[in-house]
């Protein structure tokens, strides 16, 4: 975070207690926001990839 965000004026550092205030000060909320899979977190997506792979391997095995 600090390697990237130190490029910006006033960046207080990720460990600073002021970091969230700095981000909020520069944030503009979106008027519209769409997500194709709104109920899928990154962690759940990772789990589904493993489940999908396991199911494919299982189907391959019983298909042979």
């Amino acid at each position, binding site marked *: 975070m600090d390697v990237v965000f130190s*490029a910006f004026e006033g960046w207080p550092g990720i460990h600073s207690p002021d970091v969230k205030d700095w981000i909020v000060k520069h944030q503009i909320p979106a008027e519209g926001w769409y997500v194709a899979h709104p109920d899928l977190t990154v962690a759940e997506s990772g789990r*589904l990839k493993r*489940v999908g792979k396991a199911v494919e391997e299982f189907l391959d095995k019983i298909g042979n």
Partner: protein
Amino acid sequence: MATQTATANTTQQNLTVEQKLQKLRELYADAPEVGKAALQNGLPMLTKELAAPSAAQTAGRIGARQGKVSELTVFLPFVKGGAKRLRGFLQLLEGNFRAADAVGTVHDMRFVFVDNDTKLLFATAYDGDFDPYIADFAAKIPNAMDLWLCNFEGYPGMRNPSAAADWIASHQIAAEAWYVNSPNLTATETRKLEGVGKAVDELLDKIGG
């Protein structure tokens, strides 16, 4: 606002990790203290990142791509009354973008009004390359596209897909960097995996029950 064409980051490919680290040290020689400290403290992770093969690709005509997923970022100039009209439209939609669902290649979209409602920042993640993506919108949801894009100066209409693609590209700014957590998962494949996951959960419930 000036736009730029996406270019593959080919100039870094022949550098060794040590050469890349040296370049970084030079770039950060006059950085704020927090950045200099981060460079020093973050060396183990940075070294791994710099040693990895390039994950940066282009989305064809313009934009960055990782794996199967591309980015599109545009600043669009509102026509008179366009900001009020689009804001009202988006508020009435209440987040129900069924047309985007119908296209099937859109991962996300954001609409941000900037510069005192004179411009819209639109950013999206999508599957594939720029030109086929726009052509797909023109074929599947021309009305939905015209409804929101008619609010911007110079928009030629989705019934003229080639001109519409040129118009979008002319307002696009390619991202310098682009990260996707699951770069090889299209929106369609993710939907399929959700179905597989649900079926497996039901199966396990039945076996356990």
